[in-house]
């Protein structure tokens, strides 16, 4: 084993991947969730369609329209979410909290580098534009955080830890 070079990063199993839109095939109704004004065309079957908008403000997400649609959602519904990663995954987490399953959710991410970092020290959320490994100042405690590969689907965020946490002083 070579201890001098850093190991190649292996994506956490929950890390976002490219998803397909196959979930929509068996839909009886569809809720199209457009994130941050994304206008990407979404091809849906000829079933009743509800359209909702979701928007990120920094690391916060305004999910009110989606929540209202989820109140009325019935079995047979499928979801299509399009937009930047941080907002898309926040919408998916909300749908899953309401009882939705991954197999009912189709996702198309237009910007992979739009992420949220969850601070392991103060639990504050900070938005970051960059790949995993990026360093960002925590908007809660001010620590410089490394954006880990470890992704939480429930939090829709990457784990961030203090940059020099493992350095002797």
């Amino acid at each position, binding site marked *: 084993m070579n201890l001098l070079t850093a190991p190649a990063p292996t994506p956490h199993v929950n890390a976002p991947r490219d998803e397909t839109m196959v979930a929509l095939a*068996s839909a009886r109704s569809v809720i199209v969730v457009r994130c941050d004004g994304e206008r990407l065309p979404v091809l849906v079957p000829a079933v009743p369609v509800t359209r909702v908008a979701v928007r990120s403000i920094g690391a916060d997400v305004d999910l009110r329209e989606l929540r209202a649609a989820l109140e009325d*959602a*019935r*079995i*047979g*519904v499928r979801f299509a979410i399009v937009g930047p990663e941080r907002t898309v995954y926040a919408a998916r987490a909300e749908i899953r909290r309401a*009882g*939705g*399953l991954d197999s*009912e959710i189709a996702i198309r991410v237009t910007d992979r580098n739009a992420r949220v970092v969850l601070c392991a020290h103060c639990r504050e959320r900070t938005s970051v534009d960059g790949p995993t490994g990026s360093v960002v100042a925590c908007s809660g405690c001010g620590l410089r955080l490394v954006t880990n590969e470890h992704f939480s689907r429930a939090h829709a965020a990457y784990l961030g830890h203090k940059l020099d946490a493992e350095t002797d002083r």
Partner: protein
Amino acid sequence: MTSATLPVLRDGIDLLVTDVIERAGGIRSIGLVAPGGEELPGFTAGSHLVVGCGEKANAYSLTGEGLFPERYTISVLGQPSGRGGSMFMHRLAIGDTVRASRPRSAFVPVADARLHLLVAGGIGVTPILSHARAAATWGRHAAILYAYAPGSDAHLDDLENIARDAGFELVACEGRAMLSDALAAFLDDRPLGSHLYVCGPGGFMAHVLDQARDAGWPEERLHSEAFSATELDAGTPFTARLARSGERVTVPAGVSLLEALEGTGRAIPNMCRQGVCGECVLPVRSGRPLHRDSFLSDDERASSIMPCVSRCADAELELDL
């Protein structure tokens, strides 16, 4: 050979028959307690016991809700043309002792479901009764559809009592003629987060599941329990090729893949040896597994096998071992 040699019964418990109730449609309910009257192992809704019935062993669903039970209750449909197990159960008298497994579970409720739709066909009412009781006990939301042949409405009174006390919707459907319409109405307009549980004869379950799929229910929301045979057929012989060593292991008819691998001196982690616990799962490289377990998901079945019960549809199965 008697059923007492089955591993599941060897590690099981002796139970005393304390009461017997004859119900409509040739169904008999049997109450069982520990001989010393002590508390029995608890179980989750939808669990079953494997009971030694003379030379055979049959699985019977527990109809209780499972929390700190002092008594197990099962209901058995008498099948004079069956393999003899149910008639053995119908001959039991109060005071007789039977050998049973501990409760086993392969039909659990989904803990975070918003609504549990419980669908029973005929004698399939037994695990559904357990689910209904547990849902009432834990304050879960449930709705029940019970389809039965005219005059064979065993446990309908129990379901009515539960539904009334807990505020559950209950649809009683006598005969097959109304089933499709009743089911369509029952499946319609259910909130996101609902799960469906069905137990009954094979054709009934296939009908219910197909109708649910057509109504847009994804597989992950559909849960079913077939009346499991505890004695699987012997199967056809095949060869297991172990990819890492290149070794070939012959698996004769009547010998499980797990037993054949153990015969070569390998220690495969295992527990239930009945296709339920998932302990012995092995990765498959090639060959089509003949899955007979009740543990693996459809996704997992593409690349895994449970060697305690499953075999191979091809002449050779290549394992990543």
